[in-house]
């Protein structure tokens, strides 16, 4: 395990997504934008171990995985800006990234990574023995039938798949307690796949667990379910209402609260008790966001790994500036085209 390499992958992804955020804030990227900031340790720990011929099925948070897999950041940025020279000619956008060369595909349909990884692994088993497929998805996706079906089938057919569940404790505004009755270990067991739980903020742990799982898969011993907790520092997507409220309550709350109060007071409807229960739900979502570990920098996986490397500040600095240069140049190229 080369911690420097892992760090550089994570750092690159972070800087890239900061650039994306800027473009998005400037209105140059349209529609939704889901970032992977906060899950970089999971992606790096897994993607750094992929070989040529391995395939990736990625969900709506595709940038980090694509970038770490070696897709050119300029191509990615151009894609997000909708340029014709983007990775997909501007036709895909951040939720529909595809690189045939890297056997890497995303889908904005929750759970679709399951069938995709299954198919990739089937092709690997037949055409490229020793190659594997990875699926990245969130804990919310685990209630999508097709993902459950796919895990069972991968286990049954003994396919070389690594199912990676990035559990950030949120599916947009819904928490696991509202969506999943069983524990994730039980869910995996009920689908016939071995379960490994790791701290997704710790890239070394992810790397170690992944190494074993990948080895199993490569040597024909079937799939593994890797469950890794993380925090999405920017929330579900840029501009998420819950995060906006906690970050700028004075700006955001008045508009929301006025309508809530009018509705709460409106004659006709539930009992006072029911109404209060409704208010409680909203308050507790806001409080959960407030208290969310994402607010503590100790939960930033990048800072964690950095701590392990500060003993060599010169190398770190040099590495940082190399990555910064790469991303800045991609950003500059993207912005240049916008101007033109």
């Amino acid at each position, binding site marked *: 395990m080369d911690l420097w390499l892992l760090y550089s992958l994570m750092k690159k992804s972070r800087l890239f997504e900061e650039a994306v955020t800027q473009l998005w804030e400037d209105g140059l990227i349209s*529609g*939704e934008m889901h970032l992977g900031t906060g899950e970089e340790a999971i992606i790096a720990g897994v993607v750094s171990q992929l070989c040529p011929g391995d395939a990736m099925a990625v969900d709506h948070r595709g940038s980090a995985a694509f970038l770490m897999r070696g897709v050119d950041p300029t191509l990615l940025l151009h894609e997000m800006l909708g340029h014709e020279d983007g990775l997909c000619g*501007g036709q895909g956008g951040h939720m529909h990234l595809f690189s045939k060369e890297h056997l890497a595909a995303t889908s904005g349909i929750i759970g679709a990574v399951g069938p995709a990884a299954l198919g990739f692994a089937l092709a690997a088993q037949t055409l490229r023995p020793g190659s594997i497929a990875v699926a990245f998805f969130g804990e919310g996706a685990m209630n999508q039938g097709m993902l459950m079906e796919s895990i069972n089938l991968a286990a049954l057919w003994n396919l070389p798949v690594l199912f990676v569940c990035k559990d950030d404790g949120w599916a947009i505004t819904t928490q696991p307690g509202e969506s999943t009755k069983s524990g994730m270990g039980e869910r995996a067991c009920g689908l016939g796949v071995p379960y490994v739980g790791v701290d997704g903020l710790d890239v070394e742990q992810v790397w170690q667990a992944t190494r074993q799982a990948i080895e199993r898969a490569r040597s024909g011993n079937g799939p593994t379910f890797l469950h890794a907790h993380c925090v999405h520092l920017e929330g579900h997507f840029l501009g998420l209402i819950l995060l906006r409220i906690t970050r700028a309550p004075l700006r955001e709350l008045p508009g929301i609260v006025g309508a809530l109060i009018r509705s709460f007071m409106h004659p*006709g409807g*539930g009992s006072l008790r029911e109404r209060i229960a409704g208010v409680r739900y909203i308050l507790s979502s806001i409080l959960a966001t407030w208290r969310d570990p994402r607010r503590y920098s100790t939960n930033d996986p990048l800072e964690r790994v950095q701590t392990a490397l500060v003993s060599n500040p010169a190398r770190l600095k040099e590495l940082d500036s190399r990555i910064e240069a790469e991303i800045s140049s991609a950003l500059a190229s993207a912005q240049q085209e916008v101007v033109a």
Partner: protein
Amino acid sequence: MTTMNFSEAIDDALAQAMSEDPRIILFGEDVPMLRRNLLVRFGPKRVRATPISESAFLGAGVAAAMAGLRPVVELYMVDFLGVSMDALLNQASKLETFSGGKWTAPVVVRAPCGGGYGDGGQHEQSLWGWLAHIPGLTVIVPSTPEDAGGLMYAALQHDGPVVFLEHKLLSETFLEFLGSGGRLTVQFDVPAEGRRGPVPHKWKPLPIGKAVLRREGRDVTLASLGVGVHRALEAAEFLEKDGVSASVLDLRTVSPLDKTALCEAVARTGNLLVVDEDYEGFGLSGELSAVVLEAGISCKYARVCTQTTIPYARKMEDQVLPNVNRIRTTAMTLL
């Protein structure tokens, strides 16, 4: 008369219906947060969050309707019917026939649809013609706040399954939630009359299956629905300057289709231009030509629809979705 935003009007009609009929419940992903105003008035038993299990909760909505409730099931977007189509294709739509006319499922499936804000082809489909293909489904696509509220109110009293599609460009709430996300730096081509408009003080059901003529004209009939109606109206203004008088028919419901209104409108001008944001082939636009031909009306015909998967880039997207310019130039080819 007050004025309301498009989704506000729908939620208002829904609230009125919920206060009148305790059998109405709402569920779907993030619904407590998305419909928070209803949540604090009707409580968490009637406004529920679901897991990302569309097949389960959509099918549950159908069965709950069979067993006496009046569920409004929300999908995040109509595109996500891909994973849960069985509930509509094989269950809800077929119940009345299968039961010999003795049982129906009065479920309302509410889903945002349509594009124009840069999410790309997996999240911006219209699919109303696709849904209307299935016998037994009612498909509603309103274009103004007044229609949206009145038709939602009617849907809640309807005896069978209704798909109620809410164009995202008209829904300020949704657009803000997904597309702009609090920044002021993006702008979408939102038709003003669709976004906000007058609404009645008390909702009454609008008739399902009745089109409305939004503009009278002599030379060509533009038939459309949803955002397309506003694009057609805008194109009609331009055509007026070109010396062409266009009428604009707002279908409002796809199924049942108001064949009478369509045939009358086309018979008057002799030219039919369909403006349909759904895919061109094998859908609504073709159906309209068939209805007119079947009625023995001879006319010239053209259509401005979505022909391919909707690309992500805003510029390309604008070309692929029916835009004012395409409507205008295509209309001219008919004359």
